[in-house]
């Protein structure tokens, strides 16, 4: 027992001071009150106007009490549930907890057999979901691609239909429009056992993306309304590009991007008080030479860390970004960029960190990047767990007992802690030269490829209920029918 003794449960890290956070928080409120956003959805403007917003044409300005009220209603802590009830696959959102998963909508994919870059197809979806299901440090699922070999309007629906039976980890689902959203929801509700059961234990999160700068697009808002009225936890994630669609300074992009999220927050909490809501998203630099949105730039983890602190200051969970790269292949660049952003994300405990497995600046999804980052996340999680200090870990008695010129390998203390104290790598090599050579002189890439292929060949996720499979088939058939005359 001790009095007034403060312990750090993990490694401490922060970007902003309390004063800076207060200044930025009020900057966002100021921006929403005096500049406002264009909300390209008439019904949403009516709802917001009725709730107290100032509406001029498409421009919606929010008096700050409305935003504060929405922040008060939104929960900081809640659970996303594994569809099969596996407690290891539940995600508990709350302070100090970082979770990781892939991103959506890359047009291309690294073929797991040929290792060549090619368009993403329907057949790739189950592979991603099964790998996600198996990797110990990947917590939620997105598909790493836009399904290219189905009707243009049905990519998102086929994606969810392919992911849902192949992982029981919670899924974050994007969609083109509310028809997709409805189909996705029907599948998830079937498995949950009805709308009411779903509301109590949601097994997926709905993803919407507004436009920077300062536009709430019709589709984003339309999907938000669907999610809010059906009580689906929501990610509302802008993708502002510093120097392009956002101010070039970190403080500027964070303030503006937060305002874009909080317009969605205010609408969502007006429609459904208490709806779990993640502010987002991907905040990074436009490369001033190539004009790409840089997924490997140091500004991405830095801006995302700042944004995470602002979100947590405001009492919201964050949709983080990391584990991604601008590299076109599995190389040193991919590992540096991916590992650094993953580590930073873990340090901030941004609540759901997505885009793990993105390569080529989000153009190409890679199972191999995802698998290597699983290792980087495990590594990072070990560091952020910090150093525990108590009588037992200080080991004064053990040091005294072993004394000089002896060793600790046979101590019960060593046996008690060696598993929990260390991170045991699955891909990083620590053999001596001879053993490394005799086991084939394998590089990190070769070991990663082998692990991915091994998981894909052996891992079996838990099955969905038979009636859910029927619902999936029905939803896809109805969707095909809906678009059959559309080009």
């Amino acid at each position, binding site marked *: 027992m001790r009095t007034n003794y403060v312990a750090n449960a993990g490694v401490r890290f922060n970007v902003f001071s309390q004063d800076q956070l207060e200044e930025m928080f009020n900057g966002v409120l100021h921006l929403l009150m005096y500049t406002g956003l264009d909300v390209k959805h008439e019904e949403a403007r009516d709802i917001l106007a009725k709730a107290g917003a100032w509406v001029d044409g498409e421009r919606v300005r929010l008096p700050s009490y409305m935003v504060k009220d929405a922040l008060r209603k939104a929960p900081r802590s809640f659970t996303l549930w594994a569809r099969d009830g596996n407690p290891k696959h539940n995600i508990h959102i709350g302070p100090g907890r970082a979770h990781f998963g892939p991103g959506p909508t890359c047009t291309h994919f690294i073929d797991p057999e040929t290792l060549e870059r090619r368009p993403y197809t329907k057949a790739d979806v189950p592979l991603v979901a099964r790998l996600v299901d198996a990797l110990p440090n990947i917590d939620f699922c997105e598909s790493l691609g836009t399904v290219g070999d189905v009707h243009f309007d049905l990519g998102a629906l086929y994606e969810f239909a392919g992911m849902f039976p192949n992982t029981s980890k919670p899924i974050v689902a994007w969609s083109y429009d509310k028809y997709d959203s409805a189909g996705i929801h029907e599948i998830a509700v079937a498995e949950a056992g009805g709308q009411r059961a779903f509301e109590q234990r949601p097994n997926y999160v709905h993803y919407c993306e507004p436009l920077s700068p300062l536009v709430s697009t019709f589709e984003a808002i339309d999907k938000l309304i669907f999610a809010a009225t059906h009580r689906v936890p929501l990610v509302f994630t802008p993708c502002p590009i510093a120097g392009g669609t956002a101010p070039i300074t970190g403080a500027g992009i964070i303030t503006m991007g937060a305002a874009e999220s909080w317009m969605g927050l205010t609408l969502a909490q007006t429609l459904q008080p208490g709806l779990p809501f993640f502010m987002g998203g991907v905040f990074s630099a436009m490369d001033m030479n190539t004009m790409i949105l840089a997924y490997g730039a140091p500004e991405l983890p830095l801006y995302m860390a700042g944004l995470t602190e602002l979100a947590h200051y405001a009492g919201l969970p964050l949709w983080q970004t990391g584990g991604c790269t601008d590299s076109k292949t599995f190389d040193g660049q991919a590992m540096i960029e991916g590992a650094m952003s993953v580590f930073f994300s873990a340090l901030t405990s941004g609540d759901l960190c997505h885009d793990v497995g993105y390569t080529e600046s989000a153009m190409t999804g890679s199972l191999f990047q995802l698998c290597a980052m699983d290792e980087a996340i495990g590594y990072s999680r070990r560091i952020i767990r910090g150093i525990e200090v108590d009588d037992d870990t200080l080991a004064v008695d053990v040091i005294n007992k072993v004394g000089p010129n002896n060793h600790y390998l046979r101590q019960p203390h060593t046996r008690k802690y060696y*598993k929990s104290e260390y991170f045991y790598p699955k891909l990083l090599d620590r053999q001596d030269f*001879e053993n490394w050579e005799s086991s084939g002189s394998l590089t990190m890439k070769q070991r990663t490829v082998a692990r991915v292929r091994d998981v894909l060949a052996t891992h079996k996720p838990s099955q969905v209920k038979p009636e859910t499979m029927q619902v999936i088939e029905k939803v896809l058939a109805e969707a095909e029918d809906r678009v059959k005359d559309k080009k």
Partner: protein
Amino acid sequence: MSKLLEKMSTAILEGEAEKMPNLVKKALAEGTSAKEVLENGLLVGMQEVGVRFRAGDMFVPEVLMSAEAMQAAMVVLRPELAASGHKQIGKVVLGTVKGDLHDIGKNLVGMMCEGAGFEVVDIGFNVEPENFIEAIKNHQPEVIGMSAMLTTTMRAMGHTIKAIEEAGLRDRVKIMVGGAPVDAEFAKRIGADGYGSNAPAGAELAQKFVGAA
């Protein structure tokens, strides 16, 4: 009877030293021969330990627990084995070479060799080449194990091997070397017969030398 042997190999695998004396006594009391206890019980467990360690499914602290369980069993079994005229699989002389005071790694190799069924003679650290020669003459081991921890002392391994050659004893022993700065290439250069990168690998090498693995 075979169930008891199975229990024994499992207890070795689980590193349950406190269970071993009773298990061995019980098996002997039931009429199982000491040789059978060793070969079909204890060594079966230790072999599995080796397999799991190499596969990365067991780690050094667990391997040592198994070796300790083996030692605990051997305390009871050794007199019985001697009485029945059973020979251990071989004899290993271990020492840290001249100028080097580090003996942790060497001690671990010793434990693992005992676990593998060897009689181990530990001649300590900072061992002069002459003392290695003397030990070969006195103990007549099949295997000599030398350890060095430092780049400055690893040369002494070469000097020791040379001294053994000059004494005309080189053909009588297999020599294995190990230690932090040592590798297979160095072992070859100084004329050793093999190199073990860690304690279980050292014991495995010794087994190979006597044709037991």
